[in-house]
């Protein structure tokens, strides 16, 4: 099924669900990373996903984007079951992802990494016939995107491996923000970021939501989560322990559910 | 059970041995025996040849024909084979000592080199010689015999000032060409070229041609493959020395068949001979023309 089908309209008060996972299981040998997890992302929301280390958050989003194949379970986009064969299919469906391991090519420069897999071609015959890259424009756009995030960076044609940890993360975040058409998933996008840069990225996430795209944000930073999330999906031991609203629950409540000290 | 004849050649890289194997195969079919052939991977692959003989003993071969990579490399395994009642015949290259095998059917490579060298010297007339040596793989038994024979026939010693230079070709035409080109760049006066075999000579000719010198250089070779003889006929190579792999192989197979039937073993050295092939004979050197050569050459 093509992911390009028109979204079902939300009926009544029930909000439209953009991305959904039902009873997804993923095992590695005798390790069960996902133990029948459910997941729902609604249109226009920022959904935070929280949980202890090893709770299965990254595995869950990799299953959602086709980066890995779940052992069992179902994934639906706009209510239609989908089978992403790989991350390429997810990208075609307009889903952009910041993976926890960043997925950058260290030897390539910043601009190349920003446009990796989405390179711009030169205008005119040069581009269409000779398929020439528009390196200049990519460099400029990359510079603009990174400036927008207020990142202090060395020259845009430095290899990514020469960047600081936070700068590298900035590149991956900027990439996802630049190209998303349907929804954005970010796995701990601010883990390595400074105070100022974190603020910028949260700002960016809000602006993405305001463009109408829902965002999945995985984060261990409770203040950030409570600052920005519309709903909070809490993972525990490979399952969804609860989905709560930051308005009805406190940080302590959420941490208690995460660690199993309480239930929703 | 079938009578199994084993054949172990030096390499599969050299057409000489490929033809030898094909001839043995044909003869074996004729005689209704089974041929299992093996070869080393490169000139000097003693280990590969030893392993091949071991495998053939295991396979139950009645007789093994072997062209040893070097004359003393596989004495032990040959001894093992003979002790196991296998007839062992050396083809093309003798072992040292020669009685390590039951019999040897071979050419005298040194003599073949002498023939090549004598022809080149005589054909040059009283011109002052400037010689290029396109060697095979230095250190190989055949390589040494042919090289030394050529010098003897040419009447010069190793290190003679008339030797303009040498190149290692491994008997391959691409390396022969590169080696010849570089030697010509170094010394444009080269007027005699020794080649280890006809593929190397083919490469040398390509180089000479690109230097526009194909007419005035005495290019000679050894082998007697049909491609080589045709090159002599076309005037690319002045002369080549023909050997007879077919003959060696067929004689070898016959001997094994005879041994299987009667238990009779051949013995001693049988020279299968070598002939100088050229259409421009020189005085005092026996030679055959290319018409004869094309009738008797090996390959196609």
């Amino acid at each position, binding site marked *: 099924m093509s992911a390009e089908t028109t979204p079902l309209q939300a009926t009544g008060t029930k909000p439209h669900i953009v991305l959904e996972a039902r009873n997804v299981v993923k095992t590695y040998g005798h390790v069960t990373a996902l133990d029948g997890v459910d997941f729902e992302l609604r249109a226009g929301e920022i959904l935070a996903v929280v949980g202890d280390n090893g709770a299965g958050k990254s595995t869950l989003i990799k299953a959602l984007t086709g980066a890995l194949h779940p052992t069992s379970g179902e994934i639906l986009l706009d209510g239609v079951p989908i089978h992403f064969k790989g991350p*390429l299919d997810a990208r075609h469906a307009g889903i952009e992802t910041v993976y926890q391991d960043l997925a950058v090519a260290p030897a390539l420069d910043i601009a190349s990494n920003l446009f990796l897999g989405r390179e711009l071609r030169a205008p005119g015959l040069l581009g269409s016939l000779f398929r*020439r890259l528009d390196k200049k424009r990519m460099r400029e756009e990359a510079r603009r995107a990174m400036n927008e995030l207020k990142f202090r960076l060395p*020259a845009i044609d430095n290899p990514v491996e020469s960047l600081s940890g936070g700068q590298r993360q900035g590149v991956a975040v900027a990439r996802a923000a630049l190209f998303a058409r349907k929804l954005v998933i970010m796995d701990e996008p601010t883990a390595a970021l400074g105070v100022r840069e974190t603020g910028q990225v949260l700002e960016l996430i809000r602006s993405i939501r305001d463009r109408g795209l829902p965002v999945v944000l995985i984060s261990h930073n409770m203040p950030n989560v409570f600052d920005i999330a519309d709903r909070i999906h809490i993972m525990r031991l490979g399952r969804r322990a609860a989905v709560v609203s930051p308005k009805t629950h406190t940080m302590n409540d959420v941490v208690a559910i995460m660690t199993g000290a309480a239930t929703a | 059970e079938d009578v199994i004849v084993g054949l172990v050649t030096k390499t599969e890289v050299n057409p000489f041995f490929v033809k030898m194997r094909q001839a043995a195969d044909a003869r074996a079919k004729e005689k209704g025996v089974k041929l299992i052939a093996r070869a080393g991977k490169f000139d000097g692959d003693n280990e590969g040849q030893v392993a091949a003989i071991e495998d053939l003993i295991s396979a139950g071969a009645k007789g093994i024909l072997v062209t040893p990579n070097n004359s003393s490399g596989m004495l032990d395994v040959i001894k093992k084979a003979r002790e196991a009642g296998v007839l062992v015949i050396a083809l093309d290259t003798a072992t040292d000592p020669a009685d390590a095998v039951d019999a040897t059917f071979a050419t005298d490579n040194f003599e073949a080199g002498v023939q090549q060298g004598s022809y080149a010297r005589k054909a040059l007339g009283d011109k002052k010689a400037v010689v290029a040596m396109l060697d095979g793989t*230095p250190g190989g038994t055949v390589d040494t015999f042919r090289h030394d024979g050529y010098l003897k026939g040419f009447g010069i010693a190793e290190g003679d000032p008339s030797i303009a230079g040498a190149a290692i070709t491994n008997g391959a035409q691409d390396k022969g060409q590169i080696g010849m080109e570089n030697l010509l*760049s170094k010394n444009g006066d080269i007027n005699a070229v020794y080649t280890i075999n006809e593929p190397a000579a083919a490469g040398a000719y390509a180089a000479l041609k690109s230097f526009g010198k194909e007419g005035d250089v005495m290019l000679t070779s050894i082998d007697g493959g049909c491609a080589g003889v045709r090159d002599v006929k076309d005037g690319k190579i002045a002369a080549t020395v023909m050997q007879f792999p077919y003959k060696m192989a067929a004689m070898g197979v016959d001997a094994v068949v005879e041994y299987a039937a009667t238990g009779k073993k051949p013995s001693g050295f049988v020279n299968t001979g070598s002939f100088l092939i050229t259409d421009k004979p020189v005085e005092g050197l026996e030679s055959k023309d290319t018409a004869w050569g094309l009738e008797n050459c090996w390959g196609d």
Partner: protein
Amino acid sequence: MTTATVSPVETSRSLKSRILGAPSAGPLLVLIGFCLIFALSNPRFLATHNLSIILQQTVIIGVLAIGQTLVILTAGIDLAVGAICVLGTIVAGKLVNLGYDPVLSMGFAILLCTAAGLAAGGLVSGLRLPPFIVTLGILGILTAALRLISEGGAFPVRDPFLAWTGNTMKLGGFVLTYGVLIMFALYAIVWYLLNQTKWGRHVYAIGNNTEAARLVGIPVRRHLLSVYLLAGLIYGIAAWLALGRIPNADPNAMQSANLDSITAVVIGGTSLFGGRGGLIGTLIGALIVGVLRNGLTLAGIDPLWQDLVTGILVIIAVALDQMSRRKS
């Protein structure tokens, strides 16, 4: 980080630092250095005719090394370069000798080489086998197949079209074969592909970090297939060039092409781990090997010693390159 610019992201590096920092600057200096030494040891070295000879000798390995570079950039290795190229010469030669149209014969032979590349790519990308094993296996298969096709022996190929690449032309006093021009043209084209197109970017990305390439949505398997396919095509063209150099099809030719082409690539500064390096370096690497061989002969070094001197000079060449890189 201190930058005086107003914008937090600095502008591009200066031209000078880009040239000195270019990965092929080191090998180039080494090449020039060797040429100078050889020129001093024998003035004939610089004769235009000799330089032209060196270029002609570089053609086959030079072109094979293009394909090898592509494969190595994806963190692979190709042990079937020589075998595929010989396949091309044998098939084209055989067909022409059987009376088929030379252009069609050559075209078919090149197609077959491309198919061999495709087969390697299919096994590498489809079954995810190590390229070393796949190409080693194909080498074995082709070695046998070539002997079967050619019935063991070399045969002359007499056809003006197949030999055309060996014809010479004059370019301002410099004699070049068409083969040399085709080599340069191939370098230019593949350089463009590698450096100016998305396809080339993805080659680097895959070699540098396959998992990242996959995650950002590059179709890694399909891309690998295209790399091996292009490499096969290039080996096929090399077959045509080989027939131009020696109009003779020999199943036993190019035994050392694997090692020679990999050597050119590595001397040229490309990493065997993939993702780092470039095509210009390979061309320079191939030329360094050619210059060494020719220069040592012209310097009158005994061939017995040439291996030794070459061994030392190759190590020195790469050591100099390495040092220049560490400095910058």
